[in-house]
């Protein structure tokens, strides 16, 4: 039994030739994000003479760093074929619970622990609905987004809860001239980038997002991995919420309001495929900077916030159209 004894297969059965290497390397959404980033820096410097200042850009990035950190994990969730719109509300509720606890006299480390646990619990509730009950994550998390922020409002009313002075100012801690939250974002990006591309866990996230049924048949514990991702994003959102509390010095129920749009935008702009299976941490990393550059450039140029809303909306739509287009071109 050797192949040569068999009647030769017709040409239609032969494998198609692979794409040339330069295409594989260059024709990808991250390239688009990178080019947009350069264009954004250029446009920003043209809009306002005050824009091109590394310290200012870093300071501005700090304001978005909590969202950016969560967006890195959200990227993994989206690659796994799900989505989570609730982390911004989770940030608010975890931070409110933390602030409320410490105000009630609970020692800060314990209050942080409870805040993080509540973040995990919120992730778990999402996981129960999405994985346990097999409901679509987008609708579930729209529901939990309303619920979590509503609960934050129940806990805190609309007053702000102060945190102690010494706890304030994580964003003022500099490491090599870079604010700590930005450093955390960069480090997390490196770690998650490696996890996603270099470990079996990351590999299986792509496999689940590409074809969940096949992944399950290949012995991949899809439920466990997806639950892990929802727990992970819940925990990271809680951390982000508490970091925000430290940056602001106080917590209110509207902390991070509308942040879900920014997070989704970072992932989408970075070329994460909305239907799962494709995307990179590098893309989201670049997109986070792009978003900050664009927002900051417009704010420092005193552009109407309305224009900023329009630009955000257009960016979101353009990025999905472009990503879909690039993937459809590179996929046979």
């Amino acid at each position: 039994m050797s192949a040569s004894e068999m009647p030769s297969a017709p040409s239609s059965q032969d494998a198609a030739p692979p794409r040339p290497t330069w295409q594989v390397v260059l024709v990808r959404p991250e390239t688009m994000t990178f080019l947009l980033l350069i264009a954004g820096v250029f446009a920003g410097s043209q809009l306002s003479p005050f824009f091109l200042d590394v310290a200012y850009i870093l300071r501005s990035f700090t304001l978005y760093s909590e969202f950016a950190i969560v967006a890195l994990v959200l990227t993994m969730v989206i690659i796994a074929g799900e989505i989570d719109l609730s982390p911004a509300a989770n940030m608010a509720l975890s931070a409110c619970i933390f602030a409320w606890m410490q105000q009630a006299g609970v020692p800060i480390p314990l209050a942080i622990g409870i805040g993080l646990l509540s973040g995990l619990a919120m992730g778990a509730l999402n996981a129960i609905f999405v994985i346990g009950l097999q409901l679509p994550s987008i609708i579930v998390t729209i529901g939990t987004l309303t619920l979590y922020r509503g609960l934050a409002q129940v806990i805190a009313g609309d007053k702000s809860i102060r945190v102690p002075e010494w706890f304030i100012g994580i964003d003022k801690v500099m490491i090599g001239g870079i604010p700590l939250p930005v450093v955390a974002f960069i480090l997390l990006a490196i770690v998650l980038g490696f996890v996603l591309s270099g470990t079996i866990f990351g590999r299986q996230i792509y496999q689940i997002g590409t074809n969940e049924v096949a992944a399950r048949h290949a012995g991949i514990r899809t439920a466990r991995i997806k639950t892990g991702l929802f727990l992970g994003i819940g925990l990271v959102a809680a951390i982000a919420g508490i970091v925000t509390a430290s940056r602001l010095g106080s917590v209110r129920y509207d902390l991070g309001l509308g942040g879900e749009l920014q997070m989704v935008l970072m992932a989408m702009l970075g070329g994460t495929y909305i239907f799962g299976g494709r995307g990179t941490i590098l893309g989201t990393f670049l997109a986070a900077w792009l978003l900050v550059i664009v927002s900051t450039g417009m704010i420092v140029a005193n552009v109407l916030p309305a224009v900023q809303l329009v630009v955000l909306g257009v960016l979101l739509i353009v990025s999905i159209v472009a990503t879909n287009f690039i993937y459809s071109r590179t996929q046979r």
Partner: protein
Amino acid sequence: MLKKSLLIGLAAGFAMVTGALAADPIKIVYIGKNTGNPYFDSITGGFEDACEKLGCEFEFVAPATAEATSQIPFIEAQIQRGVNVIGIAPNSPDALNQVLDAAKAKGILVLTVNGDLVGNESHRDATILPVDFTKTGPNQIELTGSLIGYEGEIAILSATTEAPDQNTWIAAMNETLKNDPKYAKMTLVATVYGDDQPEKSTTEMEALLANYPNLKAVIAPTTVGIAAAAQVVQSRGIADKVAVTGLGLPSEMRDFIKDGTVKAFQLWSPYNEGWLAVHFALGLLDGSIKNEVGNTFEVENLGTIKIEEKNAMNTQAELTTFDINNIDDFNF
């Protein structure tokens, strides 16, 4: 390509140089709670007119939404732009502390205008409030009493449960009702909160009418609340039974005054807040005014202004009452 960017760089350089050569006018920026809030149009008008008269540069910016943190990137941007004075209507009494401190550290004069950082006064230089807020409560009670013959059940429809200004006034109203024998026959039966949303304010108003059939008057010390309450009374045709009063914008209330739904309501002049802020700021910067409690200074149209406790100053002592006779004299 290189040539082109070189040219742009040169042009930008020239722009900076010429900018520096011209005598730098004082730059004042006012950051509102959010865009699309009609109240701020009037304040901005005061800023603009005063700046035109005294020769300074003025800009108004505001975030699209009024959550606690949305003003932070705008403050950061103004610091970066190197403005001399930041006026702000803070969205949070404490979430802005860190960034305002940063502004003060850069030598920027920080004034809260129309709303203060209650409990965090050290994070701004001075505050400009329209009236002496201790008098607002008694003023409102007196007006209400005059509308209902100083007798009967009254209720309050406020903004949010934690709104600091409203809570100050409501406390004062309670005090006045309790202590002044003139109001002995008026009983406050309920205080409800419409969260400054028309829908919620309307349902709260309807609930008041259902729960207290003998209600004689409703005080709504918030512009959204009074309009919603007036609308309920108008649509039910019970203006002769339930008096609506409170704090409102003449532009929003004009119709209700004219058709008799609302007999009278009160407010101050937001325009004068802007006017005073510019005069005070420029006076401080050129040294003609000392920012010390107890000092006084003269302002055109406003007369003598005294710097009160906690570096607060008011544009007028008591509220202005609007009714059918004077409503057309006001255009804000």
